[in-house]
């Protein structure tokens, strides 16, 4: 029987770890709190080293905490990150998403900075400032930066953070061998979607939604090994999903994937979700890495990268691109379906007035593929960092434990 208003508003008859209150997806104040307590405290991927291969190459990056950054490779080949803010009048220093420049010069008043963030030119410095202020007072704000786990460039806004290695821990262990070869990004696109960033990460964290994907049902769910894939949770809210042999040619028009990947069995598929919104998705011939830049509680930029091996022959690269586009490009069969799903969630719970109260994460199947433990693991970490229960954000997990 359909539910009345009061029945609809009642919390699910499941443990509190098995559902979340949808205010965590819609509330503006909670979103701002997430930026401060989560995004500005954790390591996040800014770009891949192949996007800045030469000295003086740079990329600009909108950090999910809200900060605009510059990632640049110095003459010494070291990759560094800085706020993309001129300390003079607060102007954006670099506008283009990428480029190569020895000196980063603000267009406003021509203050100029080197790739170590030091101010190297203030026009008419002594005439204006005499000896009251000089270039050494005007260097850029540097942000913690490290390169690793497949050549990705990671940043952390928190000067007192632990190391990247400590943050990732063992979570990428299943991909250890696969991330050793030098890689190259061959695909990049952004999608702006009216949904909460966590809903995208949720989609990457559960496979029960394979019912939405005809491609995955026929090449995966109906094949041996699918229901044996296991979730493993790691420290800091990360989770992995074990592999299977995908039967790509079960889909009409899709060929079996001939090009593989070091450290991955033929037809293999490993997926690793890193808190709070990064996913390594290695599907036989292509590594896809998703990153998110939330713009508000119900708007997110999702960045999609497709990677191959730097050693690829032209034929191998062409095959990886073909494999990628079949399901993952902007015209791919699966990506559109996934984005349609989270777009629909964004529509249904766009703000508190839509009267959506709870989202269930209650499936328990011994941590196998349709178990929703990956999401539960994520929200346990979210609750810890926020000091709020995801199932009731007005309550604290510590108070509950006491």
């Amino acid at each position: 029987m359909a539910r009345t208003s009061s029945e609809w508003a009642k919390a699910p008859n499941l443990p509190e770890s098995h559902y979340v209150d949808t205010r965590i997806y819609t509330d503006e104040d909670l979103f701002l709190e997430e930026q401060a307590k989560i995004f500005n405290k954790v390591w996040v991927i800014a770009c891949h080293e192949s996007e800045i291969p030469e000295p003086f190459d740079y990329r600009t990056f909108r950090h999910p905490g809200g900060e605009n950054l510059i990632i640049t490779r110095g003459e010494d080949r070291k990759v560094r990150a800085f706020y993309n803010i001129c300390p003079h009048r607060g102007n954006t220093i670099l506008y283009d998403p990428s480029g190569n420049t020895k000196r980063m010069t603000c267009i406003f008043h021509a203050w100029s900075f080197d790739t170590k963030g030091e101010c190297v030119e203030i026009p008419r410095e002594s005439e204006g400032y005499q000896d009251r202020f000089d270039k050494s007072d005007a260097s850029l704000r540097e942000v913690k930066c490290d390169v690793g786990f497949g050549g990705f460039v990671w940043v952390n806004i928190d000067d007192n953070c632990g190391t990247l290695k400590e943050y990732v821990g063992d979570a990428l262990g299943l991909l250890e061998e696969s991330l050793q070869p030098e890689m190259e990004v061959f695909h990049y696109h952004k999608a702006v979607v009216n949904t909460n960033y966590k809903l995208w990460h949720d989609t990457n964290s559960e496979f029960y939604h394979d019912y939405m994907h005809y491609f995955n049902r026929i090449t995966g769910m109906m094949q041996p090994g699918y229901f044996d894939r296991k979730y493993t949770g790691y420290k800091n809210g990360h989770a992995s999903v074990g592999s299977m042999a995908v039967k790509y040619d079960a889909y009409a028009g899709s060929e079996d994937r001939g090009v593989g990947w070091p450290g991955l069995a033929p037809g293999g598929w490993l997926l690793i979700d890193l808190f709070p919104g990064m996913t390594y998705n290695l599907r036989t011939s292509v590594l896809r890495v998703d990153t998110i830049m939330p713009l508000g509680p119900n708007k997110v930029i999702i960045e999609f990268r497709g990677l191959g091996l730097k050693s690829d022959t032209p034929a191998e690269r062409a095959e990886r691109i073909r494999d990628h586009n079949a399901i993952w490009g902007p015209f791919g069969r699966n990506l559109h379906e996934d984005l349609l799903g989270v777009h629909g969630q964004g529509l249904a719970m766009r703000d508190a007035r839509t009267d959506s109260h709870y989202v269930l994460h209650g499936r328990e199947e011994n941590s196998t593929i349709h178990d929703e433990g990956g999401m539960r693991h994520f929200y346990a970490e979210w609750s810890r960092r926020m000091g709020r229960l995801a199932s009731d954000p007005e309550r604290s997990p510590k108070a509950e434990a006491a």
Partner: protein
Amino acid sequence: MSHRESIEELIYESGARLDERDFKGYLDLCEDGYEYTIEAYSPEIRKDMIWLHHDKAGMDLLFKNLPKHNSDHSTLMRHLTVYKVDVDEAAGEANVVSGLQVFRTELDGGTTELYAVGKQHDTIKLNGGTPKLGNRKIRLETRNLGIGHHVPF
């Protein structure tokens, strides 16, 4: 009818067939060796990218598989403007450059937005007065396609 007129008609007809989701009608306008590509340049990674590439059989399968997938049902309307037609009589073909605008209309309420812009590069086989599409490359300027789309432009 001049070459230019028949070529322009073919280009516009191909857009109209796709707008109407008359995929068979669209493929009937194509040579057997037809190839279709969507490309874009990414300033982020400073690389040309291929986003979709199929031969005629691949396009046919893509269309036939559509009902098996969950897709956004917004309609697309392609607005094409033929900029340039270079006819090579000796080769029996013409190279055509067109401006492409794709408008997307939501089913619920009918709001229309400009969804994508780019250029369309066609090689047309003249076939003695019955031109057919030999090769199409769409070069997109727009790279944020939101939730994407299952139907090619």
